[in-house]
């Protein structure tokens, strides 16, 4: 449920209405900053937020993101993974 996509806040468009511009891979849309406007609005510029139905619902925590990826990198690549990949390949060719 609940399609969400990271976008970068590039500008404040209306401080009264708490709106700003979000950029998702070059596509821009004015969004409400209401859920994340708990400090000076200008501090939001440059930050990445999770965009859902035109609202910046959460600021993405860069450190947590890095930490998660680090954890994944630490996992060793095991034989089982390769088996799994082979399974996928079979499915692809309809032989499963």
């Amino acid at each position: 449920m609940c399609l969400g996509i990271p976008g970068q806040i590039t500008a404040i468009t209306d401080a009264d209405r708490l709106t700003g511009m979000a950029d998702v891979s070059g596509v821009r849309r004015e969004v409400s900053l209401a859920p994340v406007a708990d400090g000076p609005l200008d501090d939001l510029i440059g930050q990445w937020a999770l965009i859902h139905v035109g609202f910046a619902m959460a600021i993405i925590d860069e450190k947590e993101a890095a930490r998660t990826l680090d954890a994944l990198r630490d996992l060793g690549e095991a034989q089982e993974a390769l088996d799994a990949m082979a399974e996928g390949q079979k499915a692809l060719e309809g032989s499963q």
Partner: protein
Amino acid sequence: MKHVTEFRDPALARNLLGEIARLADQIGATRDKPTRIMEICGGHTHAIFRFGLDKLVHEGIEFIHGPGCPVCVLPMARVDECIEIAERPGVIFTTFGDAMRVPGTRGSLIQAKARGCDIRMVYSPLDALEIARRNPDREVVFFGLGFETTTPSTAFAIQAAAREGLGNFSVFCNHITVPEPLRALLNDPHMQLDGFVGPGHVSMVIGTHPYDFIAEEFGKPIAVAGFEPLDLLHSVAMVLRQIAEGRAEVENQYARVVPEHGNPASLAAIADVYERRPSFEWRGLGEIDASGLRIRPAYAAFDAEEKFGVGYATERRHVPEPEGCACGAVMTGRIKPTACPQYGLGCTPETPLGALMVSSEGACAAYWQYGGARLAAQ
């Protein structure tokens, strides 16, 4: 795409698939006696099929697709009520696109639009608000639906309308909550689940504590997860590790987005605008106590149910589920979509019979569209 591409890295996926396989073997999960993990959220279901994850994970892991698609669980009667509103003279009925196809007893909103209702797709409740500002002589109704992720957006929109005195804007509220149906599922004696993948975007609003009862009362592990494939695989690994270690906790795989206590501004807006309904009807699951929200009396002027005297504001018509629909059994994980006698026959995405075929997030639709069944069939 920052914060997206990194979480689609095939190399890291291989790491995770290996980890999952190790853990699955460790806990003795096999094809015949699988470990059953429910991804609660339809977005997770969609991602599983979109990236083909179900075919990649260890064969001892079985995904059970949960009730977390707000479009799927919309009952027929609610769609009928939408059309009832949209048919009122002067009404502009605004909605998210995916709600357009849900069938009611008098067809879907797409068909109502073709019959002449002024029904417009919007991306955001803010766009509906803007339509209301630009059409002061029309009644603009927004079809508010969704779980806690989406609820704040309509709450903020109603607050803005109230601030601006926008008397021609209202919301037809169908917001529902995640914890209550989970409790209903866990209370179901037929239910056999070993763990949960928790809904990441709902949790960014409500935090992780609302799931504590799953671990504490029912002893099931849960990991709140993001929606990229690595997120999903990671959360599966986390659940398996809990099982392997005999733990039952609420873990947060999606810490970059989900704060432990949720989003205070959004929670405040929800609390200001909405209150719990005594009960609300779910397609395939029936009435569930305290599972839906309604607009508080203070905002009654923006409540389409009150304004137009439909739905719970009046004597509601009971619309029975279609005959032969096995949605309830699929949604509670008792059977796979393909085991439903209607799957692919009476029930296809073109002519959905049950809730789960309605939206591409529905388990049956995802099975069909991405070929869950057909890939295997050949």
